[in-house]
């Protein structure tokens, strides 16, 4: 093997190029070159580049370019032969001749590039402009590599020459054949060798410019992608119109989706990977976007039938979603809106379904849960649980839950959901699924707008359960309060927690009181238990009903009052007689009965100790029961048969009652335990907190809402000092959202009230800005 001389020397260019050119011709034609010859030529290139006195690299480069041009010119003849340029007959041999010439030449040029390694490395590199300069165009002459081929390595020069000398003249011929071949491939898969030729020809347009920094795909886009997309678009439009004409939307969507898959696999098989999205967009534009009205027109029907259980229509919706989703929010909106409306329609129908009147609360919650469940499943099944549909379902549930029945001033949801919870929390171990049902009720509760109204109903029911010990379990009660807290925050359940705490505190207090009695040798001659509740936390009205209980009941109460006063200074205790209960044993009957009733009921029975008949008026006056409450307490005793009316008994107008009450000495009853009821005080009595109707609840909530809003406004303004009207409103609405949806009118009223109270003022010189007055 010849040793390469590294020393610069005088060389005869003509002589050296002549032998080099011969080898170059062999290399680009992929002919075998002996190792020795290759090495000699390799050092010849070196010798020319470092020649003394003048380097001959430029001359070598020019001669090489001339050679390549001539060579590719020859290839052009070989490829074209007599094929007509205007034809798109992709089977006329031009494509396969092109591909075989390309395979040969592109490989040959790659070898040539390594033969010229030294020139590439040492000569071209120095002249090569940095990529950054090309991208940012600091040097105008190099912005287009074809214009100054000096900047190219020899391999790149070969490719550029190929493009200019061979591809340009054949551009139309190649392009039309490729597009025609692709079109044919869409309908029937070409045989492997035809497919290979097609793919190679297409990818040659990528390869030939692959070294370019700028627009490396421009030849591919010009010759393949753009003409292909234009032809594809026309093809898709024709096919889509045809599909719509021959069948319904279901048929259309099915074939359009199949077509999309075929189109994408065609693209993946033959086109550059960057083109897939363009191919998809072209298809969607022609097949879907152009036919949106037809698709949208069927949405409502599909949803209706799909929600009624039709599997075919569910498949249709899945296809509809697949077709519309890529087109963006606007194309999807009719589907989302229709999904919302369908759920609303269905929800209203479910709620309006026949049901027993006293089961209204469980009907309501069960209906809402089944609505929520049904559409969560359906939407996750056919729309993949996509966010817009989750939102549509939420909106629908919220609309149905908060719907007002005609003629009603407010939604019944808060009351119904609270009643549902109450029924479950009371039930004594009868419902093993109570826990699950309560957890599920939260799903419905979250949609309730007037959460503050719910809170009032819930608090009243909780108070009843706690005071009368009706709860199925305290763990369950606490778990439910915690669920509500998790949904609405601490402030929402604050009072509920306080009620809960009072029950525990009361147990403690009773133990202390009993100890106090023992310590002081005091006794109460009956069982005694007391619940002491914080007035502000419990929704209890009519607190101050006067009552003069008989000594048997009064003594323990007085002892407790004294004990309490001594233990807690600064607190006033008030008895809630309608909630106090006594248990009595009857001794005058044949069997002994255990009676439980309110304090006034017990007191009334105790009055018969020395007489069998008492005057109704005297009894009431002695007991100091209010006129209003008298009948509610006495009537259950008459109804039970414990007392009988004598004379002209008028419970409703006790002032002129001349009748008498008689103890029924021959009272009998199958049960030995008798619980005397006492109806709750009617609404608008006393403080109004014990009102029982929804409208009363809402009216009461209005005051609370104003209080809440004013507090929120002060809190916000204290922090922000100065705020524009619209921002303030937004802030307040977002703070209130957890418990109710305030009206702007109400917020404005509250702002005015705060300006009057001099918490706020309108910032001087502005119309819509408030500032906080410290």
């Amino acid at each position, binding site marked *: 093997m010849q040793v390469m001389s590294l020393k610069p020397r005088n060389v005869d260019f003509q002589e050296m190029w002549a032998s080099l050119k011969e080898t170059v011709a062999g290399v680009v034609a992929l002919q075998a070159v002996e190792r020795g010859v290759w090495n000699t030529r390799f050092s010849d290139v070196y010798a020319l580049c470092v020649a003394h006195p003048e380097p001959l690299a430029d001359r070598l480069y020019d001669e090489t370019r001339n050679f390549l041009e001539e060579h590719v010119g020859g290839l052009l003849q070989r490829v074209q032969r007599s094929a007509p340029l205007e034809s798109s007959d992709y089977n006329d041999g031009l494509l396969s001749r092109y591909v075989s010439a390309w395979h040969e030449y592109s490989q040959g040029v790659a070898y040539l590039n390594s033969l010229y390694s030294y020139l590439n490395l040492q000569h071209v590199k120095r002249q090569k402009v940095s990529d950054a300069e090309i991208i940012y165009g600091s040097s105008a002459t190099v912005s287009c590599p074809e214009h100054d081929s000096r900047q190219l390595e020899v391999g790149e020069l070969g490719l550029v020459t190929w493009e200019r000398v061979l591809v340009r003249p054949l551009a139309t011929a190649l392009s039309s054949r490729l597009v025609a071949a692709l079109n044919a491939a869409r309908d029937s898969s070409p045989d492997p060798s035809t497919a290979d030729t097609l793919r190679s020809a297409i990818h040659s347009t990528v390869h030939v410019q692959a070294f370019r920094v700028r627009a490396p795909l421009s030849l591919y886009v010009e010759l393949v992608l753009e003409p292909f997309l234009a032809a594809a678009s026309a093809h898709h439009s024709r096919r889509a119109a045809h599909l719509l004409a021959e069948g319904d939307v279901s048929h259309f969507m099915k074939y359009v989706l199949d077509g999309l898959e075929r189109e994408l696999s065609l693209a993946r098989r033959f086109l550059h990977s960057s083109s897939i999205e363009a191919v998809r967009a072209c298809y969607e534009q022609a097949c879907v976007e152009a036919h949106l009205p037809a698709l949208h027109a069927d949405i409502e029907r599909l949803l209706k039938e799909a929600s009624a259980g039709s599997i075919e229509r569910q498949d249709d919706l899945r296809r509809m979603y697949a077709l519309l989703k890529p087109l963006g929010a606007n194309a999807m909106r009719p589907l989302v809106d229709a999904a919302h409306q369908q759920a609303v329609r269905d929800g209203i129908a479910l709620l309006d379904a026949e049901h027993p009147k006293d089961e209204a609360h469980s009907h309501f919650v069960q209906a809402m849960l089944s609505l929520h469940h049904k559409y969560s499943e359906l939407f996750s099944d056919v729309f993949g649980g996509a966010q817009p549909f989750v939102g549509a379902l939420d909106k629908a549930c919220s609309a149905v839950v908060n719907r007002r029945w005609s003629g009603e001033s407010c939604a019944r949801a808060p009351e119904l959901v609270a009643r549902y919870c109450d029924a479950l929390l009371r039930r004594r171990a009868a419902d093993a699924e109570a826990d699950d049902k309560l957890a599920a009720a939260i799903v419905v509760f979250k949609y309730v707008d007037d959460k503050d109204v719910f809170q009032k109903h819930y608090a009243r029911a909780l108070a009843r359960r706690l005071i009368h010990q009706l709860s199925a379990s305290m763990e369950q009660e606490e778990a439910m309060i915690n669920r509500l807290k998790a949904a609405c925050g601490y402030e929402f359940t604050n009072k509920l927690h306080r009620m809960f705490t009072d029950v525990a505190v009361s147990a403690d207090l009773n133990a202390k009181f009993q100890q106090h009695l023992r310590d002081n040798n005091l006794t109460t001659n009956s*069982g005694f238990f007391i619940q002491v509740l914080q007035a*502000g936390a419990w929704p209890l009205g009519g607190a101050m009903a006067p009552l003069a209980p008989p000594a048997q009941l009064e003594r323990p109460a007085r002892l407790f009052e004294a004990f309490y006063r001594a233990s807690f200074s600064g607190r006033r205790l008030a008895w809630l007689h309608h909630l*106090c209960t006594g*248990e009595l044993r009857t001794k005058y009957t044949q069997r002994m009965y255990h009676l439980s009733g309110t304090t006034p009921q017990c007191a009334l029975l105790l009055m018969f100790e020395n007489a069998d008949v008492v005057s109704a008026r005297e009894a009431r006056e002695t007991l100091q029961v209010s006129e209003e409450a008298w009948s509610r307490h006495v009537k259950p005793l008459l109804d039970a048969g414990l007392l009988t009316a004598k004379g002209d008994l008028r419970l409703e107008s006790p002032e002129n009652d001349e009748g008498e009450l008689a103890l029924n000495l021959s009272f009998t009853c199958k049960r030995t335990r008798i619980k005397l009821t006492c109806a709750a005080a009617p609404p608008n009595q006393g403080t109004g907190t014990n009102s029982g109707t929804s409208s009363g609840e809402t009216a009461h909530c209005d005051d609370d809402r104003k209080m809440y809003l004013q507090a929120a406004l002060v809190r916000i303004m204290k922090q922000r000092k100065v705020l524009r009207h619209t921002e303030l409103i937004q802030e307040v609405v977002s703070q209130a959202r957890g418990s109710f949806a305030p009206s702007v009118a109400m917020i404005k009223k509250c702002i005015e009230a705060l300006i009057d109270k001099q918490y706020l003022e309108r910032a001087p010189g502005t119309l819509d800005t408030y500032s906080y007055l410290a």
Partner: protein
Amino acid sequence: MKVTVKSWTGVATWRWIANDDNCGICRMPFDSCCPDCKLPGDDCPLVWGACSHCFHIHCIVKWLHSQPQQQCPMCRQDWKFNNK
């Protein structure tokens, strides 16, 4: 005895004996606690001054700390705790 009392379960409410519904310092109702507390009652008691004005203990202590003179914020008389 025709009828004997076996047991009695009393229900009563308590509230602060205050001359106002709201604390004059934090403006929260006495039924609920001062803004720094979460549960009213034993943890956030009320105190009375010799002037008979009444506040959350947390509120008046904070107030007195912040003032040069130890005066009732309502009537400006010298503040004295009254443990009645």
